[in-house]
C-alpha cells in the first residue's frame, strides 16, 4: 500500500510540472506576438531603456500570474493595459523623485534665492530652450502621466502605440468614436497645460 502511495506521488510530481508547462506556453507565444509593439509603446512612454525592460518584465510577470495562472480572455487588451499602467506609475515615481531631489538641492543652497513660482522648475526661458527636444519630450511625458486615466489610455494607445481607433476601442472596451472624442479632449488638455508651463 505504502509502495503504491509513493509511486502515485512520484507520478503526480512528474505530471504537474509538465501540465503547468503546457498550460503556460501561451505566455511565450504572447511575448513573441506582441513583444515588439509593447516595447515600442513602453519606449515612447518612458524614454529609458532600463525602465522599458523593467516595465516589460513586470507586465509578463503579472500575465504569468494572472488569476491562478490562467489565460486572460482578451490577452492583447490585458498586456497593453497592464504595461500602460506600469509605465505611467514609473513615470510618476520618476517625476516625484526628481521633484524631491530638486527640493533637497534647493534647500542645500541657502544663499540662492528663487523668484516666486520658479522653484522646483526647470530654468527654461528662451524660445530655443522651450523647443529643445528633450525638454519637450519630458514635459509631454510628465503631463501625460497627469491626465485622467480614460484620456491617458487613449493617448498612449493611439499616439504612442500607434493603434487604430478601432483597436483602441477594443482594448479599452469603448467605441471608436468615444476614443476619438477622448483623444481630442486629451490633446486640448495637454495643449493648455503645456502653454501654462511656457508662461510660468
Amino acid at each position, binding site marked *: 500500500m505504502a509502495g503504491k502511495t509513493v509511486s502515485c506521488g512520484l507520478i503526480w510530481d512528474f505530471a504537474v*510540472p*509538465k501540465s*503547468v*508547462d503546457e498550460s*503556460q*506556453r501561451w*505566455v*511565450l*507565444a504572447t*511575448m*513573441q506576438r506582441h*513583444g*515588439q509593439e509593447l*516595447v*515600442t509603446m513602453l*519606449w*515612447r512612454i518612458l*524614454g529609458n*531603456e532600463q525602465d*522599458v*525592460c*523593467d516595465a*516589460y*518584465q513586470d*507586465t*509578463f*510577470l503579472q500575465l*504569468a500570474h494572472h488569476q491562478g495562472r490562467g489565460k486572460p480572455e482578451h490577452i492583447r487588451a490585458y498586456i497593453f493595459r497592464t504595461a500602460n499602467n506600469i509605465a505611467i506609475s514609473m513615470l510618476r515615481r520618476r517625476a516625484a523623485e526628481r521633484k524631491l531631489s530638486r527640493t533637497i538641492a534647493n534647500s542645500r543652497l541657502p544663499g540662492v534665492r528663487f523668484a516666486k513660482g520658479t522653484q522646483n522648475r526647470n530654468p527654461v526661458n528662451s524660445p530655443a530652450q522651450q*523647443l529643445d*527636444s528633450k525638454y*519637450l*519630450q519630458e*514635459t*509631454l*511625458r510628465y503631463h501625460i502621466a497627469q491626465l485622467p486615466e480614460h484620456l491617458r489610455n487613449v493617448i498612449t494607445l*493611439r*499616439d*504612442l502605440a*500607434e493603434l487604430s481607433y478601432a483597436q483602441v476601442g477594443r482594448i479599452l472596451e469603448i467605441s471608436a468614436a468615444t476614443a*476619438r*472624442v477622448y*483623444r*481630442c479632449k486629451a*490633446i*486640448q488638455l*495637454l*495643449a*493648455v497645460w*503645456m*502653454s501654462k508651463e*511656457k508662461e510660468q
Partner: protein
Amino acid sequence: MTSKNRNNKCKRIRAWLLKAVGSALRLADADESSLLGLDANWVQNHIASCPRCQRRLASVGKVNLALSIIKSQPHNLDLLMRANAQAIGVLKHSLREAPKARKLKVARPEPKLLERWRKYAHPATNAAACIAILLLMKAGVFSSMDKFQTQGQEVIKQYYATRAGQDVADELFSA
C-alpha cells in the same frame, strides 16, 4: 471687423482645429492643412490678428511637435532582445528552458508585413496599370476586329445584291 464676426471666425478655426486633432493630422503638413482649409486667406489674416487663435494653434502645434519627437526617437536594436531576456529570466524554469524562449532571447525587431511590402507597392501598381492597359487594348482590338468583319460582310453582301441580285446574295451569305 465686428466682435461677433471675429468670434465666428474664432469658432470656425477652433472647429477645424478640433477636426485636425480628431483625425490626427499634422498641422505643419501643408497638404493636410490645406485639406482642412487652414491655408485660406481669411484664416491666415484672422490668425495673424487674433492672439487667442494664435495661442490655440501654437499650443496644439507644440503638443503635436512633442508627440512627433517622441515617436521619431529610435531605440537600440537589441532592446527587444534585452527586454525578452529579462522577462524570461523571471518566468519559471520550464518556460525559461523552452526552445521558443531561446529564440525570443535573440529576437530582433522586424518591420511589419505592410512596411516590408511597401517598397514593392510602387512597381506593383505600375505593373498592374500596364496589365490593365494591355487587357483593355486587347479587348478593344478584338471588338474592333469583330465590328470590322461584320461591316465588311455587309458591304460585300450589298455588292452581290446590286450586281448579281438579292437571291444570290442571300443564298451566298446564309450558308
